[in-house]
Each structure stands twice: as structure tokens, then as C-alpha cells.
């Protein structure tokens, strides 16, 4: 018994059909967007590409934060240590050794440092961003500006954390910010982000060709920091006898941003101490911030925004000119 006839074995092609059914997915009927790869791509097209990569931007920012904080609260606290130490050191030195005689000096300092930390972190991170991502740049096509911009994004998130600390600070000192001036903060922040992004994009591209830019930048930022009224008040610079120095300061686009932050968070235009405990001078009136009207800040911030946008577009153009050789330079 049990002789197998040929018919008992299913034909091979039936077996094959079971294993691998032929799937015919419908051909995409939609109008396919065209993309041009050429030496010169126009700015609007590049901006559109950037906008299309916004999700990639968010993923890169997240990556940056996760790597930086190692995904833990402790890592986050650790990263706060650096700005905290800077704050404490300046506070101690300028209050007790150099006798700056500024009331609530820590608060004044923190208002300015908020701005500077964003600027500094973003530029230090972005200048090496493309060189550090050589592996991706050589193998994957995407708008490379995103790499520098994600560093700015990460610095903005960090700024947000510091802003929370600032709020705790204000509550702790039982000091209210200048409420009516708070609307300046988002405006100044936009200015700061645009300006920072412009410089970040430019530096990230240049650093591919001139690798020592990153060291040069560290030194330049150090000098720039002292040239912005963060540790000392703008009033110390802008005096009737040295008006030109004040104008020079205002020509630095970071200065109006810092002033706006100080005006909103610190807020003390004049401060009167009736019994100076340190110098026993009796009644002292101390002018910390220049008493400029609201529209002065608005005009300055609008001016900085204009500069920022022009610089940003310029940086994108320069970036576009030299990014064609990134993959071979890295």
C-alpha cells in the first residue's frame, strides 16, 4: 500500500505561490515633488527643504539633550552645575571683593547670564557640529544646517530650564519682576535665537575648512562676554562724558537683548538705600538701569531682529556655497 502517484505531489508552482504571493502595490499616482541637486540651489528652495526637515530637527535636539544629560535627572542637575558655579563666583567676587554695590546683584547677573549662556552654548556646540557628524554627512543627504540649528535648539531648551531656576530665584528672594516689561522677553528671545542661529550656521560651515575656528571662537567669546554689560551695568559705560562708548555698546546686537532681559527680570531702574550697611554713607541712590522708555527697547530689539534676519539669510547663502564639498572635506 501507499504508492504515491505523481498527482499526489502538488505542482511546484502552486507551492511557490503560497510562499511568495505576488504583491502588486498600486503605483504612486500622486504628483511627485521634484528635487534639484546642483552647485547652486536658490535660497527659497533651501528654506523649503529646511522646513520639510523640521521633524529631523526635533529628533536631533532630543538626541543632543539625551546625550548631554544621559537621560537622567542627575545628569541634568550636573549640567546646571557649570552656570551655577559661574554665577556664585561672580557674585562673591563682585559683591565682597570688588564692592560692586549693586542691590540683589545675583539677580542682576543671572538676568544677563541667561542670554549669554544660550549664545555661548549654542556657538560652542554648533562650531563643531558638522565635523562631529562627519559619519552622517558623508552618507546621508539632508539639509546640513539642521546640525548647527539643533545645537541652537538644545541651547534654547537649556535656557528654558534656567528660566525655571530664575523663577525660583525670584520667588526665593521675594522679588517681583517688572511685570509690565515682561513682554520684552519673548521678543528679545526671538532676536537672540535668530542672531545665534545665523552665527552658528556660519561657524559650523567655516569650521569644516578651518578646523581651528572652534578654539578661536572660545577665545573670542571670552572677550565678547566682558564687552557686554552682564557683570557690570550699562550705566557704568554710558555716561554723559562717554556717550560714544554707549553707542558702541549698543552696536553690539547682544547688548539690547541683555538690557531687555535685565529690564524685565531685574527691573530696578533706581534703588534707594537709606542706611548703607557697608559704607555707612547714609542715604544712597543707586541707578542700576538706565531709565529708557518702552519704545526705546522696542526699536532696539526691532533693529537687532533686522540685523539677525539679514545675517541668517547671509549665513544660509554662505553655507549653501560651501556645503557642496563637505562630504569630501570631512
Amino acid at each position: 500500500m501507499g504508492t504515491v502517484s505523481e498527482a499526489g505531489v502538488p505542482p511546484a508552482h502552486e507551492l511557490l505561490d503560497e510562499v511568495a504571493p505576488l504583491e502588486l502595490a498600486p503605483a504612486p499616482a500622486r504628483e511627485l515633488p521634484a528635487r534639484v541637486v546642483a552647485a547652486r540651489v536658490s535660497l527659497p528652495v533651501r528654506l523649503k527643504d529646511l522646513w520639510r526637515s523640521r521633524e529631523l530637527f526635533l529628533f536631533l535636539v532630543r538626541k543632543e539633550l539625551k546625550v548631554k544629560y544621559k537621560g537622567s535627572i542627575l545628569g541634568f542637575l550636573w549640567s546646571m552645575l557649570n552656570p551655577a558655579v559661574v554665577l556664585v563666583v561672580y557674585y562673591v567676587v563682585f559683591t565682597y571683593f570688588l564692592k560692586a554695590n549693586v542691590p540683589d546683584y545675583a539677580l542682576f547677573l543671572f538676568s544677563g547670564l541667561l542670554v549669554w549662556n544660550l549664545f555661548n552654548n549654542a556657538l560652542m556646540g554648533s562650531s563643531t557640529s558638522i565635523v562631529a557628524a562627519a559619519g552622517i554627512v558623508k552618507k546621508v543627504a539632508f539639509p546640513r544646517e539642521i546640525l548647527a540649528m539643533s545645537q541652537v535648539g538644545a541651547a534654547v531648551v537649556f535656557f528654558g530650564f534656567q528660566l525655571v531656576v530664575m523663577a525660583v530665584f525670584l520667588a526665593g528672594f521675594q522679588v517681583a519682576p517688572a511685570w509690565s516689561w515682561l513682554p520684552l522677553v519673548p521678543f528679545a528671545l526671538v532676536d537672540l535665537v535668530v542672531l545665534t542661529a545665523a552665527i552658528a550656521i556660519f561657524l559650523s560651515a567655516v569650521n569644516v575648512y578651518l578646523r581651528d575656528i572652534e578654539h578661536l571662537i572660545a577665545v573670542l567669546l571670552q572677550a565678547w562676554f566682558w564687552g557686554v554689560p552682564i557683570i557690570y551695568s550699562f550705566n557704568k559705560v554710558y555716561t554723559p562724558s562717554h556717550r560714544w562708548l554707549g553707542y558702541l555698546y549698543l552696536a553690539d546686537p547682544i547688548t539690547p537683548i541683555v538690557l531687555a532681559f535685565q529690564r524685565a527680570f531685574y527691573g530696578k531702574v533706581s534703588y534707594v538705600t537709606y542706611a548703607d550697611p557697608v559704607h555707612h554713607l547714609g542715604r544712597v541712590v543707586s541707578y542700576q538701569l538706565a531709565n529708557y522708555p518702552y519704545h526705546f527697547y522696542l526699536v532696539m530689539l526691532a533693529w537687532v531682529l533686522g540685523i539677525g534676519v539679514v545675517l541668517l539669510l547671509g549665513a544660509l547663502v554662505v553655507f549653501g556655497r560651501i556645503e557642496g564639498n563637505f562630504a569630501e572635506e570631512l
Partner: protein
Amino acid sequence: MALAIDIQRVSKRFRLYHEKYTSLKERVLHAGHIPYEDFWALRDVEAQIEAGKTVGILGRNGSGKSTLLKCIAGILQPTSGQVVVRGQLAAMLELGAGFQPELSGRDNIYLNGSLLGLSRREIDRRFDAIVEFAELDQFIDNQVKYYSSGMYVRLGFAVAVNVEPDVLLVDEVLAVGDERFQQKCLERVRAFQREGRTIVVVAHSPDLLRQVCDEIMVLDRGELVTMSSPGEAIQAFRGILIDAGAVGPEGEPGVAGSAPGLGHRQVRILGTRVEHPGQAERSYVVSGEPLALHVDFEVAEAVAAASFSITVLSARNEVVYSSATGALGQPIALAPGAGSLSFVFDSLPLLDGSFTVSLDVRDERGAVLDVAENAAKFEVMNPGRATGIVALPLRVELVAPGDARPSLASRTLP
């Protein structure tokens, strides 16, 4: 048919510096006299690739094929000319490029998918498929730096194949890896072809391309030599290799200039004839019948130990059989003059289909002297019912249910 990729007079110049200065200090010190040479990796390459086609790019090392692929991908920008790509494009140039060791597998899937052009929603939808494909469910929340290299490659591959672009660019790096891996890769390419996607594959070995491509572009020294059917293109490519004298023992092109160039061909294959029983009445061979291939050649210069190789390909360009007289231990000494060689299969165990034969002749070093792609063609007719390629000798043994002792009943199927 709509164009998927339009390559318009694309040239790419690389500037090769004798000494590379990458810092501001060095640039200033050496300002004005940094010597360099221009190297044109691509010169006026003009080609159109229709939507739904699979096109291979073939060339020796340094022929510009990877540069062309990178220009299409947008990783490099052409010095002049432009490439217009219609539809979403994904380039698989390296598996797991851009994986962040500090991040978990999950985060890396999102980051990598995003780099390849997927939106977050698209990745959400494919996430489970990717994890399953990579066989990494328990490890997906571990940091990638703790992955083994196998896990790393699997994850990279899983992300790459789950991007479903309109235009897919694949570099030959994907062809490295074990057999199973290559097979998975090929299967995926076939699935993409069925779905009507456009594929561009770069390779420096023709065998892979022959299997999958509709057309092949052959590049040499940055110039497009031809863009034609796989057979013709591979023939042209072989011609380039022979002229350069740069074919190694495995048939893999060596580095250009590694062997002295041959001005003329030492041996020339003139023609090939097929002979089988009943040739007068019918054009096909019946399975199991003998088949002979007669190769006529001409020797210009004596060869001490030549080796003729024969490759039989199916209609789908799969290699059915490949061997060489050298491998069989029969070196052939060739004296100048005309000659003929016969490959005789006493019995041809092939099933229905049409088959082509490619031949080449090499010297004792393995350098190819001449090639004949598609040298001969023959049809096989199988009188039995089996389908497939090879007529495997089969015997069926059935152990009937309920039998205490296995009783064997067998019958050989034709």
C-alpha cells in the same frame, strides 16, 4: 513614461591638495601657494532614468560611480550640471550611518528614520515591523553601544528597508555580509521592483547587477561609456577591464593600473556554436539529452596555461552553472593560430526555459584575455511535469500511516 531621475550634464571636480591645510593658521602661513591638482570624477554625464526602472551603475574603482550616486542622493553637489530627482528619495549607502551609541535602539530608529526622510507618523507605523525585522524586541530600549556588531547591522538594515521611497539608491556595501543577509537584500529589491519603485544600484561586480537591473550604466574615468541592456553593458565593462588589463583572479576588478595594459588581445573568441541531438528538426534540447558548445578562437600570441570558463545563466540571469578549465585542472597551452574548444555536457539536467552562455578566457595569472557575453543561447524542453530550473533526480518514499513497520514504496519521478 515619466522620468524619475534626470542627470543633466553632470560634472564633478575634486581638488586634490598635495598637502592638506585644514586650519586657519596653516592657511595663513601658506596663503597663496597651496599646490593642488584638479581631478574630474565625473565629466558631462547625461542620463535619464525612467520611473519604475532598476538601473545599475558599473565601473572600476575610481570610475566615478559612487560619486555619481552621491550626486543623485544630494550628498555631493555637482560642480556643473544638475540632477533632478522626482519623488521621495532614500539612499542606502551605509547601514546604520548616524546611529548614536549613547541612544537606545528605539531612539535611533526614530533618528535614523528621520534622517532617511520619514516623518514621525510614518516611523510610528513601521516601528513594530522594524523591531521585528531586526529581531531586537528585548534590546530595543538598550543603548546601541552595547549592541553586538550583528545587532547593529540588523537594526540598520531593518530601518533602511522599511523606508519606502519612490527612488531608492543602493551602494554595493549592502552586498557585503553573509549569504542570508544578501538574500534578504535582494528580496527587498525585488519587492521594490514589483511595487514600481525606481532603484539605482552601484556595484563593481557585474553579477549582482545582471540579476536585478533593467539597464546598466557603465562609467569609466568619469565618463558614461554606455547605458544599455545588462548583457551589452557588461560586455562593454569587460572590454574596459581587458583594455586596462586589470582583472584579478576572481573576476573582480583590481585597482586601475595594477597590471600592465594590453594594447591588443592575445586571444580572441570568434564565435560559439551549440550542438545537440535532433538539431535539424527542433530548436530545443530535451532534458537529459547531451549538449555541446563549440568555441572558435584565434591566438595572436602564445599563452602557456590558458583557462576557458563557461557560465550558464537562466532567463532570470541566475547563474545555473559556472566553471573553468583551469579549475578542472586542465590548463591549456595555446600556440598562435586558429583553434576550437568544445564544452560537452553528456546529459543536460535542466528543466524548461531558455538559457544563455557566457565565456571568457584567462591567462595563468587570471587576467582576462577575452570575454563573450551571451555567446550562445539554447532552449530546454522538459517532457515531465516538474518545474524549476534543475532536473534533480528524485525518489519518493512514503511511510503509510497505520503501518507498524515502514513499508517502502518508491517511484522515481521524471
